């Protein structure tokens, strides 16, 4: 495995995280989790329909990445609620989209799998496994052509790493030295298929070796670590050195989608993984290392509760998607 050269990794580093920033990241993760839990509730009440893939357990990846790439372009797959919120999509607009309401981020046209928000350069929300990865190169191409000081961050799952689209994208990104940070969120499963049954090699970042790309693998339960490693990768890509593939080990607590009971997990696996829960880790770090009073965090939890509940209510009370909008978005003027 090639890793990001130390010289660059050190150059790039963001300033060491402050208590304030870490509290903010804690809050972001909390919010994602609570919104997802409410989405789960709404789903069982048939207020959200279709496929609904929850991000619970993986929050540190999107939130840590956001801490390092907030102003960059992001593009993600269908398990993207967390990414959307971390990137700045208001919880209300996202939840309303899940409810299929006129106030949703895509006014009810897209739904759970297709959150888009141009205001914060959140470019979806895509449903075909691996299919959106090539798009990242195009965004990076534009960045390069227009000499923007940005990168394109592209998220996908372990399941995407056996798809031709993913591979072609990696080849092209490396050939053209595009400013892309490819992030594989390896949560051990593609639906019911565990890692070792998907691929002969389970260190998936080694896919990068086949195209000569720099890559790194690390556990992503600690949001601070994610922030720092993604920042290094960002700097590498931004500097013109070429793209980077990060394999971030994570875990999803729920089934693949709301309709998956996830019976394929070995007994005890979920419980074990929960021992390194991203929110708990950060809670501990804040209280133990930074000496934050737990009450401060409880207060934050309460604020989050309000925001999440408001999002839910907003979604619930919003008007249905507007029939008259049906033909408005087939062709652009």
């Amino acid at each position, binding site marked *: 495995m090639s890793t990001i050269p130390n010289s660059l990794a050190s150059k790039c580093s963001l300033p060491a995280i402050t208590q304030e920033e870490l509290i903010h990241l804690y809050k972001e993760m909390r919010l994602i989790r609570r919104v997802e839990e409410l989405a789960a509730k709404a789903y069982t009440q048939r207020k959200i329909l*279709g496929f609904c893939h929850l991000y619970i357990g993986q929050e540190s990846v999107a939130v840590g990445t956001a801490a390092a790439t907030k102003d960059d372009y992001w593009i993600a797959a269908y398990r993207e609620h967390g990414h959307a919120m971390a990137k700045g999509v208001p919880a209300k607009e996202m939840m309303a989209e899940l409810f*299929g309401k006129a106030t949703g981020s895509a006014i009810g*046209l*897209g739904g759970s799998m297709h959150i888009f928000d141009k205001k914060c350069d959140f470019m979806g929300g895509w449903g*075909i496994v691996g299919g959106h990865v090539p798009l990242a190169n195009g965004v990076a191409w534009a960045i390069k052509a227009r000499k923007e000081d940005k990168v394109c961050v592209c998220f996908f799952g372990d399941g995407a790493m*056996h798809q031709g*689209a993913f591979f072609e994208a990696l080849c092209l990104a490396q050939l053209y030295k595009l400013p892309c940070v490819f992030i594989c969120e390896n949560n051990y499963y593609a*639906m019911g298929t565990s890692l070792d049954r*998907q691929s002969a090699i389970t260190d998936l970042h080694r896919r990068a070796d086949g195209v000569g790309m720099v890559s790194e693998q690390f556990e992503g339960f600690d949001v601070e670590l994610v922030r720092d490693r993604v920042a290094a990768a960002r700097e590498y890509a931004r500097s013109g050195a070429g793209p980077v593939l990060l394999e971030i080990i994570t875990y999803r607590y729920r089934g693949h989608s709301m309709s998956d009971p996830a019976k394929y997990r070995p007994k005890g696996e979920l419980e074990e993984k929960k021992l390194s829960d991203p929110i708990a880790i950060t809670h501990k770090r804040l209280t133990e290392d930074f000496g934050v009073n737990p009450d401060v965090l409880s207060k934050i939890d309460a604020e989050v509760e309000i925001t999440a509940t408001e999002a839910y209510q907003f979604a619930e009370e919003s008007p249905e998607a507007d029939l008259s909008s049906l033909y408005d978005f087939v062709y652009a003027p």
Partner: protein
Amino acid sequence: MAKLQIREALRRAMTEEMEKDESIFLIGEEVAQYNGAYKVSQGMLEKFGPERIVDTPISEGGFAGLGIGAAMVGMRPIVEFMTWNFSLVAYDQIVNTAAKVYQMSAGQYTLPIVFRAPNGQAENLAAQHSTSVESLYAHFPGLKVVTYATPDDAYGLLKTAIADNNPVIFLESEMTYHVKGDVPDEEYSVPFGKARVRREGSDITIISWGKQIFRVMDAVKKLEAEGYDPEVLDLRSIRPLDQEAIFNSVAKTGRCLVTHEGHIFSGVGAEIVAQVQQACFEYLSAPIVRVTNRDVPQPYATILEKEVNPNPDRILEGAYQILRYS
């Protein structure tokens, strides 16, 4: 006679054939350990083992191609896509390889392979997960395309598909896997190219296939109540088409409506209309009408989706247009 769910009928067809012929294997995402994304292959791993019920990673082009290669040397693979939407990444393999092996090799290599998956929209799956693919495959000589509405046909058509020596595109639906119906206990197969008359009638021929048949039967109830006498043809086989049944029916009724899910433009409906207007020109008392999805990408919200779908109300509207034409 057993009442089977469609998923059970499909499973029975596969299981019987696999018991008889060792060269048959089932390959696709989640077909083995997960028992199928929609539980069609439930229990089959246990019965046939991991060499014949094969889980794959998410690489549709790769395992479709694997199936094609295996079929060329005498295996009889059944390739399952999780849905037909995902076959679009394997499109080249199917239309530009599978469809042409037999011809390019001048008959040296046959391709006994079944590609099966749920087709068309389910509910609230939005634009990328709602493609009806029948016209995209039926366009190509070398492929056969079939589908069913009820368990008995699901069973009988899959039996024929597995026995066929050509690539067969087998269209299912996640919305109807649970639908129950009578399936005769003895083995049988339903031949390709034979439509099924779901209702005999004399006023209008309504042509459809797949789960759209259920919407048609809904609409038909209303028509009956209003004193009309519609004939309903369930095509079952899209390529080959049962021209005889279609033309005879339209010659009898003089009126024709074609309804299907999916996009209208160059859909299978268009093909049928083009053939019928030519064959039945002298018999038609009204223009043929198509009722399909409205011409937009599938939206997510229920209220929008309902409006887009070729629902019974829209079928009725189309029927009235034809029946009241003068």
